């Protein structure tokens, strides 16, 4: 199990009804690596994450997670949603959210035990939020919420982490903390897939990058893949190269 590749995708195509939304995606991910999935809005970033979770119909090719079918591998995979997609009024505290990561281990009908609580506390400490354990999730800042959701994934002991736009509306402190924690997880052999449109972050924190726009435009190290040429291909005329060598993409409304 542990020596299986965290993620193998082979000429994947996904379609809703008859409309193909993503095709021609092939790459492998080894333990401890982190992949930035980059692409414009509507390029199929969330669709790719959903395919890895086995939540969308695969019409061609294959996805294998830890050597298993995506559905069978789910309990070894942690999905970290965007913090602002969750109900801020929900009556649950930060500790309660982190504890959710233990539920599959606890099993049906049983309450989390002492070891589960210890694991949840450790995970909260890992993201530096031990002092906010009893705060209601909705009272935390955007960055703190994102850290709590990452702690939930840590408590799950997952081998593969999927993060959906983890840096949207996140303060600089939390951003640095998230990057540090991801580094420690990777050192322990956890593989990470991050969908993002933050190119600077992709260069900074990821060992690989995958550029998509309805299909896979490129895969490799961030420096290779996120070249202006590739980006121009994916984003069209909105890409500009600055004199100092960095590439920017003209802001588009979200």
């Amino acid at each position, binding site marked *: 199990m542990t020596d299986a590749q965290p993620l193998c995708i082979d000429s994947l195509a996904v379609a809703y009804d008859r409309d193909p939304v993503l095709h021609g995606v092939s790459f492998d991910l080894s333990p401890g690596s982190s992949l930035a999935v980059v692409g414009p809005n509507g390029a199929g970033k969330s669709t790719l994450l959903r395919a890895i*979770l086995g*939540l969308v119909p695969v019409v061609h090719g294959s996805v294998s997670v830890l050597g298993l079918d995506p*559905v069978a591998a*789910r*309990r070894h*995979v*942690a*999905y*970290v*949603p965007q913090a*602002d997609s*969750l*109900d*801020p009024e*929900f*009556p*649950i*505290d930060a500790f*309660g*959210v982190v504890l*959710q990561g233990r*539920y*599959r281990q*606890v099993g*049906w*009908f049983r*309450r*989390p035990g002492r070891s589960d609580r210890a694991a949840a506390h450790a995970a909260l400490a890992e993201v530096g939020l031990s002092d906010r354990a009893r705060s*209601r999730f909705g009272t935390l800042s*955007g960055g703190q919420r994102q850290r709590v*959701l990452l702690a*939930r994934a840590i408590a*799950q002991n997952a081998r593969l982490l*999927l993060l959906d736009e983890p840096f949207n509306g996140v303060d600089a402190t939390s951003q640095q903390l998230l990057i540090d924690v991801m580094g420690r997880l990777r050192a322990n052999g956890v593989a990470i897939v991050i969908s993002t449109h933050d190119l600077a972050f992709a260069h900074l924190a990821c060992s690989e990058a995958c550029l998509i726009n309805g299909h896979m435009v490129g895969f490799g190290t961030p420096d290779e893949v996120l070249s202006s040429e590739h980006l121009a291909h994916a984003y069209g005329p909105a890409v500009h190269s600055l004199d100092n060598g960095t590439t920017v993409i003209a802001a588009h409304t979200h």
Partner: protein
Amino acid sequence: MSIYGRALIEVMVAGFAAGVIGVHIVLRRLQFFTVALAHATFPGVVVAYWLGILPLLGALGFGWLVVGLLVVLTRLKQVDGSSLVGVLLAGSFGLGVLLQGLQPRPALDLTSILTGHVVATSTADVATSIVVAVLVLAVLAALHKELVFGAFDPLAAEAQGYSRWLDLLLLLAVEAVIITTVPAMGTILSVALMIVPAITARLWTDRLGLTFLIAGLLGAGSGLLGLTMSDRFHLAAGGAIALTTGAMFVLSWLLAPFGLRRQMQPHGIQLGSTTS
């Protein structure tokens, strides 16, 4: 047992179960769905009366049919969920009126279906309500952590391997509790016990366990108080109970820590957009 005693047991059992499951309903934003399901018990009661079976079972059967239809219809991506719920609500209510007009035996009283007729509650109704309430509360307790996880973060729960069947189970449980409230409240007013105690409880606490307890007690208390008032002042019991839940909400809004007081407090700029 006296008629009044039977009615009292009926409304308090139904009120407690409704209060507890109401918290799940509010957390998952299933309020409109609950209103629709309550309306959808109407044709079920009429058909059961025709067939000579216990009306509550007819209501349960038709309600579950509507749940199934909704699950299938949500695959229609063009039409949003609330419109689908509205279509089913209107359709089943119209069907109920139609069938009620067609019925060969005119004895079935429309008023009691729509607004409840708790003093006519039979021992079989009370027994059914108690069995259903105990079963539902047991299921909710057993699946507590999974149901709350699914309400808070459905995608992450599914990613961890929890099946969407859990959501369906909750919907079926909601319908089961609705039928326990129908003898007292009727098909339209049962929403009072299903939702108002739960939103009232949210004004008192942030702790989830406590929310469930308060909502259950408020539901049972509204049943007790409302029934007593209806007996004293000769009002329709369903109406009196529903107005009691409303009064409890208003009182809580004025007094509870997260009601008016919280609103008056100056707080920072609220991030995120308002709903709707």
